[in-house]
């Protein structure tokens, strides 16, 4: 609420309102300013839909990308599939001076299988969704991708783009976390890999610094008894989830071991339900009460935010159900999606 007589000069009101949150997206998650709606809506106060002027580069090597980022710093923005960045640029919330298009960079579009699954950062989501290698090594990726926007989004959107964008309600970051994926990052100092748990640092914030590039996502080779499941609930099919759960574990002799339960929509980043994981490690998975209790322990860990699509209390309540259903789906080998519906 504004006080009467409060005077303000607003040449660019939306920017004044949103400030540094200029990394935001079509996500439904509340932004840190408590706007209660998607950041795009919050930014839309400019009523503009065509990008401001920028320069454009289309390098073909990672080295060139790093060089450009080093030279231009925060004024440069990496463009992969554009499904998150372009709406922000159209609405003039993001106003880079230089757009570095990485779609032509050699190697970033490759999928490699060498025990582990290495997904180049500009591999299209639709490509990995239909990849036999991915289906064999990590079927949860395709199960979750079904809920990432729509076909027309996924056929342009990239795996790396979604993960680097780090929307806390997005599917792929949660799946990466559940799979204990490692992110390959290149920068002026060379290459490094970052575990998913260390990668997502906050709202649209990752361990990739301004002069670095996410080059690949590496999914470790699964153990023989690996199981996984993905469920979410959204207002509509294809929307960012109100809440979602990706689980991955070993299922041996009726026991759930080494479970990773990644939850989206619960905080400023996807988080592991560690209390539930620890609980499962001790318990008998054949007891139907076990998964329900795991769900309760997961929910107890979080204090999710509210927005116009659901209050935080709803997200907290439903995360318990989703954890239970994801675990069941993983064991039954069913499509998590159907499980989410019932």
């Amino acid at each position, binding site marked *: 609420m504004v006080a009467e007589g409060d005077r303000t000069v607003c040449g660019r009101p939306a920017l004044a309102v949103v400030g540094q949150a200029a990394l935001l997206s079509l996500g439904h998650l509340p932004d840190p300013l408590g706007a209660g709606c998607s950041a795009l809506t919050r930014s839309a106060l400019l009523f503009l839909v065509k990008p401001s*002027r920028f320069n454009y*580069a*289309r390098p073909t090597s990672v080295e060139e990308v790093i060089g450009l980022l080093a030279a231009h710093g925060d004024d440069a923005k990496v463009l992969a599939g554009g499904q998150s960045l372009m*709406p922000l640029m*159209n609405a003039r919330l993001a106003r880079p001076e230089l757009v570095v298009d990485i779609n032509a960079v050699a190697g970033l579009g490759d999928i490699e299988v060498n025990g582990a699954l290495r997904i180049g950062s500009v591999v299209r989501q639709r490509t990995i969704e239909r990849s036999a290698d991915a289906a064999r090594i990590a079927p949860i990726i395709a199960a979750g991708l079904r809920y990432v926007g729509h076909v*027309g989004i996924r056929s*342009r959107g990239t795996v790396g783009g979604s993960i680097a964008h780090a929307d806390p309600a997005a599917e792929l970051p949660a799946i990466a976390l559940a799979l204990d994926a490692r992110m390959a990052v290149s920068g002026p100092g060379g290459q490094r890999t970052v575990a998913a748990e260390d990668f997502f640092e906050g709202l649209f914030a990752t361990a990739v610094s301004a002069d670095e590039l996410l080059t690949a996502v590496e999914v470790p080779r699964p153990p023989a008894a690996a199981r996984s499941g993905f469920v979410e609930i959204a207002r509509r099919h294809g929307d960012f989830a109100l809440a979602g759960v990706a689980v991955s574990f070993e299922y041996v002799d009726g026991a759930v071991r080494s479970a990773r339960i990644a939850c989206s929509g619960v905080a400023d980043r996807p988080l592991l339900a560690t209390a539930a994981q620890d609980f499962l490690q001790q318990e008998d998975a054949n007891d139907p009460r076990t998964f329900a209790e795991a769900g309760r322990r997961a929910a107890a860990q979080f204090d999710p935010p509210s927005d116009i699509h659901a209050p935080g209390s709803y997200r907290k309540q439903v995360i318990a159900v989703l954890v239970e259903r994801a675990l069941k789906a993983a064991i039954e080998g069913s499509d998590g999606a159907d499980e989410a519906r019932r």
Partner: protein
Amino acid sequence: MKRDDNHDGAIVDGEIEVRLQVNGASRRGRAEPRMLLADFLRQELVLTGTHLGCEHGVCGACTVLVDGAPVRSCLMLAVQAQGADVTTVEGLANGELHPLQQAFNEKHGLQCGFCTPGMLLSAAVLLEENPAPSSEEIREHLSGNICRCTGYVGIVEAVQAAAQAGGGAEASVATTPAAAS
């Protein structure tokens, strides 16, 4: 530095020429980096069948095929389509109506027509990938294309009818120059 082409690595800081294949023909036009592909198709190439409904990637009206894949042309820059093979709704009919176009007429799959171009192109991709989709598969595939008029009933029926008429296998979309010529 002004360049005639966005050659690899060089920084483009002004209008350049974009050359690409559209509906099987070589086309060229001018675009500054910020020009959206949708605006380039509509304004530079005067292919106004591609419609803009939101310009933030939600409604799907601006869907075109880029190298055979359905994309939202409001979320892609014209300079990114350099050398690409683009299909718009204008490329769907090949002398006679595409089976999908025929079926949309027969099943009342359109009312105001604004979503129709994007809907047709998304459906065409579906039928190429899956020549006999179930109604559930059709609904899921088309969920990124909003229609405000029809309630999708006629659209889903039309895609099914087109599939039965061989709309996927026999009437390939002009995603390659050869197919369109």
